[in-house]
């Protein structure tokens, strides 16, 4: 691809968690990198060669880094391909995604890592990075080739939605990954309590007659994981906390100085169990939507910095997997295109400063995984998003770019329109009219 034309993004509200700056400014990008960041709305003496974009006061921030994205490639391309996911990401202002290894075949050896990276290079949209499986076939028994996958370019290891129940396997895999400097992500769920359940155990689920799992299953597994993180010294990424109860465990572990970071999905910040309403399967998630107390606790934990990263938990499921009785429907929701406007909702509700919310989807995930992203800094890749944070958007699932349309935000009104997304200085999404 030829180098993109230099571009000047002027008259913007810069939001840069790395420097802590939230104010008027401009960014100049050339040769794929940020060549200048100015804390004033205009840039004087620009050559006519340079494409100038007047942001009209819209937010200009580092492109989002979403570390938990599922596609269907390889193996289930009807759900989502790497390309359709990268297009959806670009439309959502997400410039880097980390795809999950629970594909067919699983990403548990270096040639599959290599396959994904090669495909990602050819796509040339948002950047796609693979996470590797922690165990072979995500079966929770034998360690996957963590070292070789790391060398091939995987960013962290995880068995995704399948908790590793055998503590010896978990301990060794964490120890081994730590020896290679590879972060280890794990879903805190005790499968003996959550297997075959479809909802959060509560009075609501009971009245609905849903098979439900108790919130405590999350804390039980989290406590074990944190203890193993302490024993092994490994970097633990707590994947998608959903209960208020577990936050206490997390807080203790962080106070102890353990290498632990926690994520929460945008869905668990936005909805609660009542949204399931009349058995709407688009709200069937894993972990399940919890009570309103839990949601409130998660929002507070995010605002207070206890939770580090917000993820879309993008999980495409085609209609045939969702149009089923609630207990039988596939869990998960697409989220790449709604992550940013949904997160901005917390800003509009004055739950957290904009810059802190943005940190959770830019700087913090980038630092956690060692990506050169998430900052408006000279010399950094020009991965940028311009978003009119006040503009209303009505989500229409049918108009989503994702191949699967299972959005729980369908029909909802959000605020925050992604106007422009740049990856390496190149415009990959343009919603200006």
């Amino acid at each position: 691809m030829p180098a993109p034309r230099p571009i000047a993004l002027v008259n913007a509200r810069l939001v840069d968690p790395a420097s802590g700056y939230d104010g008027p400014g401009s960014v100049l990008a050339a040769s794929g990198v940020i060549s200048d960041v100015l804390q004033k709305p205009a840039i004087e003496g620009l050559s006519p060669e340079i494409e100038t974009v007047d942001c009209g006061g819209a937010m200009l921030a580092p492109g989002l880094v979403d570390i938990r994205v599922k596609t269907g490639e390889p193996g289930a391309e009807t759900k989502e391909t790497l390309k359709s996911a990268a297009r959806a990401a670009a439309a959502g202002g997400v410039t880097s995604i980390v795809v999950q290894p629970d594909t067919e075949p699983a990403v548990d050896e270096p040639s599959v890592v290599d396959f994904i990276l090669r495909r990602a290079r050819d796509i040339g949209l948002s950047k796609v990075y693979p996470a590797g499986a922690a165990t072979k076939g995500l079966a929770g028994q034998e360690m996957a080739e963590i070292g070789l996958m790391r060398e091939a370019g995987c960013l962290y290891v995880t068995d995704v939605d399948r908790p590793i129940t055998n503590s010896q396997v978990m301990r060794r895999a964490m120890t081994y990954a730590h020896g290679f400097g590879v972060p280890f992500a794990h879903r805190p769920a005790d499968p003996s309590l959550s297997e075959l359940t479809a909802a959060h155990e509560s009075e609501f689920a009971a009245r609905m007659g849903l098979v439900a799992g108790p919130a405590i299953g999350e804390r039980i597994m989290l406590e074990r994981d944190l203890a193993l993180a302490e024993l092994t010294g490994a970097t633990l990424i707590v994947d998608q906390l959903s209960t208020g109860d577990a936050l206490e465990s997390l807080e203790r572990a962080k106070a102890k100085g353990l290498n632990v970071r926690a994520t929460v999905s945008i869905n668990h910040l936005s909805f609660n169990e009542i949204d399931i309403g009349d058995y709407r399967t688009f709200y069937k998630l894993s972990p399940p939507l919890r009570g309103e107390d839990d949601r409130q606790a998660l929002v507070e934990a995010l605002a207070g910095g206890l939770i580090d990263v917000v993820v879309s938990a993008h999980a495409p499921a085609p209609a045939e997997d969702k149009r089923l009785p609630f207990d039988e429907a596939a869990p998960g929701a697409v989220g790449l295109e709604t992550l940013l406007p949904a997160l901005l909702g917390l800003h509009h509700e004055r739950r957290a400063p904009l810059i802190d919310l943005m940190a959770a989807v830019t700087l913090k995930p980038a630092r956690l995984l060692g990506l050169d992203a998430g900052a408006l800094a000279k010399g950094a890749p020009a991965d940028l998003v311009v978003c009119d944070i006040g503009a209303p958007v009505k989500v229409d699932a049918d108009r989503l770019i994702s191949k699967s349309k299972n959005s729980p935000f369908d029909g909802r009104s959000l605020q925050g329109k992604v106007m422009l997304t740049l990856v390496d200085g190149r415009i990959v999404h343009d919603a200006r009219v």
Partner: protein
Amino acid sequence: MATIALGVDDVRARTFPFPARHFTSAADLDRDALAALLDLADGFVALNREKAKKLDLLKGRTLMNLFFENSTRTQSSFELAGKRLGADVVNMSPRASSMSKGETLIDTAVTLNAMRPDLLVVRHSASGAASLLAQKVSCSVINAGDGQHEHPTQALLDALSMRRAFGRVEGLTVAICGDVLHSRVARSNVLTLQLLGARVRLVGPATLMPVGADRWGAEVFHDLRRGVADADVVMMLRLQLERMTGSLVPSTREYFRFFGLDREKLARAKPTVKVMHPGPMNRGVEIDSDVADDVAISLIQDQVEMGVAVRMAVLTSLAARLDND
């Protein structure tokens, strides 16, 4: 190092009573005794290179090899050592699997003790088995490998091989690489080499490194490239096949990629580097044949030769102690 022709008289002159009744751990030797033992072994190396190797230093003594675990190499090394010294050698290989451990081990010991051997060489799969036997018999017990604990004569032969190759052990940087967790060779070597003043490094994947290894006085590395950088000696350890299939190490190919010794990784060591391996080797797993078979850098064959000599030294010295008792 110039080889001085040593005779039987020199060997007799160098013989000294072993500082302990038994030799179950490398820690049984202090620095002086260790050096003296290596000097004595040097004498045996010279004698072993003569045509007529048979001596009578252990004439009338009975050496019993009691190997609960198979080991062709170590057992024949002890057997040869005993025979060359003129001892009567008996090999026993009770099948460990048919025995319930502990109780029967002591039963066996008591039975054997009644046959009045002088020197009992023991190999057993359980850590501490040699010490347990030593408490129950009246002869001298030599630990030829107990579980994951120690293999002190291996450490001696390694030290002798290094001393002969470099003229000294003091100041050498020795990288012990691979499955340290399960290795009795590593544990004995750490003790012996540190006593002789070497700088010891332990290199291996985090899953194969014992808890607290960083407090053994050795530097711990999880990256072979960095672990062998500027090393004088690279000692590779054997990785048991059953440990390569996912529980501790993902696969053979991953192990070789990161922890197998090949030319490229070895190039980071000193140009004068020597490579060692206690054997038997897993070629293509922990060591590339290309490296293992290069006589210019490999001490692996020397190690086998030194094995007989140090065992002769240990047997002679322990017998001298029995003479005094």
